[in-house]
């Protein structure tokens, strides 16, 4: 059995499960974001449920529309605060950042865990060796009412990553390379594991980027086998959390194993309006950038700020370019301030927003006008995601976004021009 199947089996109170089997599972933690909490609590009532089944397993995070800019969201968040109190839900985070950044930081995600969330990027957590998957609001409301929900045991494919990064290349470029090679439906309904010597050397932050992106290959969850790096992370982040990793029995537990040498990968960019067309910076020609959008559950962690600030230090944004920065979490924000990274970005001309989803949530500061071009270290460049449906968004690594913000056009971070 694959570790993913074993994790599902354990949470279904079963000895074993087969790929393709549908089982009822009890998750360790369920994340409701502001939208999810509002919709799911409403749907819970409509399903005839009064009390949530187990308030201790529920974590509510306001990240999409916080702080609210529309009155309907203010009203809805007030209702959710009252609902949380009524239900005895103690784990509540507003303004502390994005659920998928907070979960690993606060130890809600841990090896061997099963996590549900009302958001597709819940898969991010699977970098710690757990099963983490998004669900719709009715799905989550049903869990809230009855304490379990169904999962299909997925087939798993494994990417073995080896070789050395070229200068200016990061985990994000690997994810874009996979989209380039295998498409947006590279892994429909599958588990996607990352392994190999390169992953063994990767910090947790880069592993989180890889697993964050699997949803945009169609996957149900990512997976990285817990190792010493994972154990150190857990010891620092959640020393009191008891966790038990699972291990995969053999190579025959994979539907497919794909070897990927990263040495040949250049800094890559996904061009509008999806991830299926990916080019190297050099092949793009001259793409003028009106706005750089920096942060999100893909690129809003402290390592992203370190990479960006190193490229931006002592430089200014191009005169025609603006930059919207939303730290992924309050902790990231504080750390970036302590290290002077925020100073560097603000002095360069960037605007710092609230820890949270930022413009990627579709209704926060930094929306694009028609015909504007943006580059972002978020995961998606879907039409209309950052404002006007007639704007163009390019997805790249944190380094490429920072270098391009300075240059005012898309450039490789390997050769940042002075400005």
């Amino acid at each position, binding site marked *: 059995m694959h570790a993913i199947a074993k994790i599902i089996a354990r949470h279904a109170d079963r000895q074993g499960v087969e790929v393709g089997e549908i089982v009822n599972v009890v998750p360790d933690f369920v994340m409701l974001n502001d939208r999810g909490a509002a919709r799911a609590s409403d749907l819970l009532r409509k399903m*005839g449920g009064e009390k949530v089944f187990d308030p201790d397993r529920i974590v509510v995070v306001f990240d999409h529309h916080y702080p609210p800019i529309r009155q*309907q969201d203010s009203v809805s968040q007030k209702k959710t605060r009252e609902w949380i109190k009524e239900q005895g839900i103690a784990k509540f985070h507003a303004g502390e950042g994005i659920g998928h950044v907070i979960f690993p930081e606060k130890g809600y995600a841990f090896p061997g865990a099963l996590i549900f969330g009302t958001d597709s990027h819940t898969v991010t957590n699977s970098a710690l060796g757990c099963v983490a998957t998004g669900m719709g609001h*009715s799905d989550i*409301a*049903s869990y809230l009412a009855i304490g379990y929900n169904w999962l299909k045991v997925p087939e798993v494919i494994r990417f073995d990553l080896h070789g050395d990064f070229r200068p200016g290349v990061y985990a994000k470029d690997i994810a874009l390379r996979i989209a380039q090679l295998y498409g947006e*439906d590279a892994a429909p309904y599958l588990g996607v594991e990352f392994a190999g010597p390169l992953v063994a050397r990767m910090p947790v932050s880069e592993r989180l980027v890889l697993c964050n992106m699997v949803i*945009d290959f*169609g996957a149900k969850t990512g997976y990285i086998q817990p190792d010493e790096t994972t154990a150190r992370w857990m010891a620092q982040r959640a020393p009191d959390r008891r966790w038990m990793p699972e291990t995969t029995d053999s190579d025959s537990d994979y539907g497919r194993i794909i070897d990927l040498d990263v040495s040949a990968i250049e800094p890559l960019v996904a061009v509008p309006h999806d991830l299926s067309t990916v080019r190297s910076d050099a092949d793009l020609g001259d793409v003028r950038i009106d706005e750089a959008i920096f942060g999100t559950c893909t690129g809003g962690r402290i390592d992203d700020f370190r990479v960006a600030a190193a490229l931006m230090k002592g430089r200014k944004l191009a005169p025609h370019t603006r930059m919207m920065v939303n730290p992924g979490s309050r902790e990231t924000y504080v750390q970036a301030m302590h290290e002077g990274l925020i100073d560097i970005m603000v002095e360069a001309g960037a605007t710092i927003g609230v820890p949270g989803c930022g413009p990627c949530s*579709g209704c926060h500061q930094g929306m694009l006008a028609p015909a504007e071009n943006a580059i972002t270290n978020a995961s998606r460049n879907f039409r209309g995601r950052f404002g006007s449906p007639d704007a163009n968004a390019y997805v790249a690594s944190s380094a490429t976004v920072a270098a391009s913000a300075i240059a005012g056009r898309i450039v490789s971070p390997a050769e940042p021009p002075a400005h």
Partner: protein
Amino acid sequence: VYIKGKAWTFGRNVNTDLIFPKMWFRPTYESGEMASHLMVGIDEEFPRRVSRGDVIVGGQNFGCGSSREEAAAAMKEAGIAAVVAPTFGRLFTRNAINVGLPIVTSPRIDEEIAQGDVIEIDLVQGVLRNLRSGYAVRLPPMAPESLRLIEDGGIAAYTRRVLEERRRAKA
């Protein structure tokens, strides 16, 4: 479950941002509101042009991307009789089943159905026919759990029943 309706065709990798753009997100929706934004990321006129009983036909990986249930719920609310594609995004699949929207997978089906064709689907017998071209194909059997959820009218009805059974067991 027997379905007969007019087809509306869409391309590959149609993500849920296009099916239900987030600018229309609201914490709660009035009746008919979700349907009024269906597919507006691709065709602003779609909500006015589509009729109850029509069928949506997508290309590979239809409904990929964000978990938003509004994508499937808006189709259900608009009276879409079924959604058909070679493959679907996982979250869209779950959401469709949960809201009681029949979801039909068949390889290369997007090449066999053109805009405006009349499609006949028998979910119990597992057959899809294109009444214009005469094309007919057997459908892979749905997981019995999924078919039951759709027949129940979705996950809300299922959950209500489980809660009711638990209350009775307690009493």
